[in-house]
């Protein structure tokens, strides 16, 4: 059951990060940046399509997650199909207090997006963005973010929400960036537009990385407790794997920012080689992002390293 829960957590985290991060992308990378109606409409349509599939995945994994919690909380292997147990989870626990609102939104969002897609309406990004903010931030309240007493609880909760939102800006933004760069190349909109989109994503990505590092450090203070616990607890070891994958993402981002972007801007080669390398690098970043989210999905089911110090 725990393995199933890790898988469902992974799908849930990936899906809502894509919803938020991909829908924020046009607001900082495209707005006022040599906007063309066709380009913005194309990218908005891509985001709306991606959001539809992501919201479906989020809905299904949220239902599955609720079923797993019903089994794990009650200790009853059939808890997932017992109406009374499911009701108690939704009605009498802090997890349920957050989950019922998430479920409601996740029921409405795919219906709304399907209606827009089927009726061929002009793609709208902001409803996805607003939903994404709530869906990402509220995940902070259902895991280790909910622990603690008094002041530290609210600090930890807010910090965890910030950590998730900043991570989603980067992880979800990569998906839109990958599509946007390919679209700009295929539609031959020019190297200057491409350069500006990359520069803006790079700046926002840099701010996101700083926020991830700062909030990640505060989280470690709450959940790990000591440097030694990073090595001699399972939680600490998985966290190290997560940090290693994150550092690979940072290294790739630096490679893009400090090596490939100047080459693209200077036109030191035919442009195609640098662009191909850049797209590969973004794809590799996405793979490491998937590994980071997989580690997070596992971490939420493990007792924090701090517990070992208490026991």
């Amino acid at each position: 059951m725990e393995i199933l829960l890790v898988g469902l957590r992974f799908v849930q985290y990936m899906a809502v990060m894509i919803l938020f991060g991909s829908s924020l992308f046009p607001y900082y990378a495209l707005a006022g940046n040599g906007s063309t109606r066709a380009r913005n409409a194309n990218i908005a349509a891509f985001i709306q399509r991606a959001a539809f599939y992501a919201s479906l995945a989020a809905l299904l994994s949220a239902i599955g997650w609720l079923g797993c919690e019903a089994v794990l909380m009650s200790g009853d292997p059939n808890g997932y199909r017992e109406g009374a147990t499911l009701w108690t989870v939704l009605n009498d626990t802090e997890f349920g207090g957050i989950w019922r609102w998430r479920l409601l939104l996740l029921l409405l969002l795919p219906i709304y997006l399907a209606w827009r897609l089927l009726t061929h309406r002009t793609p709208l990004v902001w409803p996805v963005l607003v939903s994404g903010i709530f869906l990402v931030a509220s995940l902070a309240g259902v895991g280790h973010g909910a622990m603690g007493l008094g002041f530290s609880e609210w600090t930890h909760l807010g910090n965890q929400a910030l950590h998730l939102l900043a991570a989603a800006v980067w992880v979800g933004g990569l998906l839109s960036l990958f599509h946007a760069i390919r679209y700009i190349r295929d539609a031959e909109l020019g190297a200057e537009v491409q350069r500006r989109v990359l520069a803006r994503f790079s700046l926002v990505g840099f701010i996101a990385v700083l926020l991830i590092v700062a909030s990640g450090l505060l989280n470690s203070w709450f959940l790990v407790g000591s440097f030694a616990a990073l090595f001699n607890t399972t939680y600490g070891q998985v966290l190290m794997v997560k940090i290693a994958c994150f550092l690979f993402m940072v290294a790739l981002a630096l490679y893009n920012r400090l090596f490939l972007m100047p080459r693209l801007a200077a036109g030191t080669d035919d442009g195609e080689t640098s662009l191909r390398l850049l797209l590969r690098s973004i794809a590799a970043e996405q793979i490491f992002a998937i590994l980071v989210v997989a580690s997070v999905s596992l971490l939420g089911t493990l007792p924090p390293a701090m517990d070992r110090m208490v026991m």
Partner: protein
Amino acid sequence: MSKTTTLRVISHAIAVAILFGSCTGAVAHAFLDNATPKVGSVVTTPPKTIRIQFTQRIEGAFSHIHLFAAGGQEIATGPAAADASDQAVLTAPITGTLAPGHYEVRWDVLSVDTHHTNGHFPFSYQP
């Protein structure tokens, strides 16, 4: 942002990360903090309720307290509930009769971060 500034900010962030490693912080998951009757105590009047203070808030709907006599037979208790004013406190009324002797309280609780913990502690009743 120049290359040098970018690298400098990142190296500072990593240095702070290493320094932060030795800090200590809050307690995760629910563990026993204190209890009434006290852990390992000898009481002279039979307690009416068992009250356990945990290190974290708990979900009363999925938390339990059981009381056992030295011979292993269970003493009747009412349903455990989280305290209305402090969600880190779990109480259960003792509805059975206590004879003088040794007892063991067993608890299993679900903390608000959805993890189970359990434990037990003894006390004695000597009028």
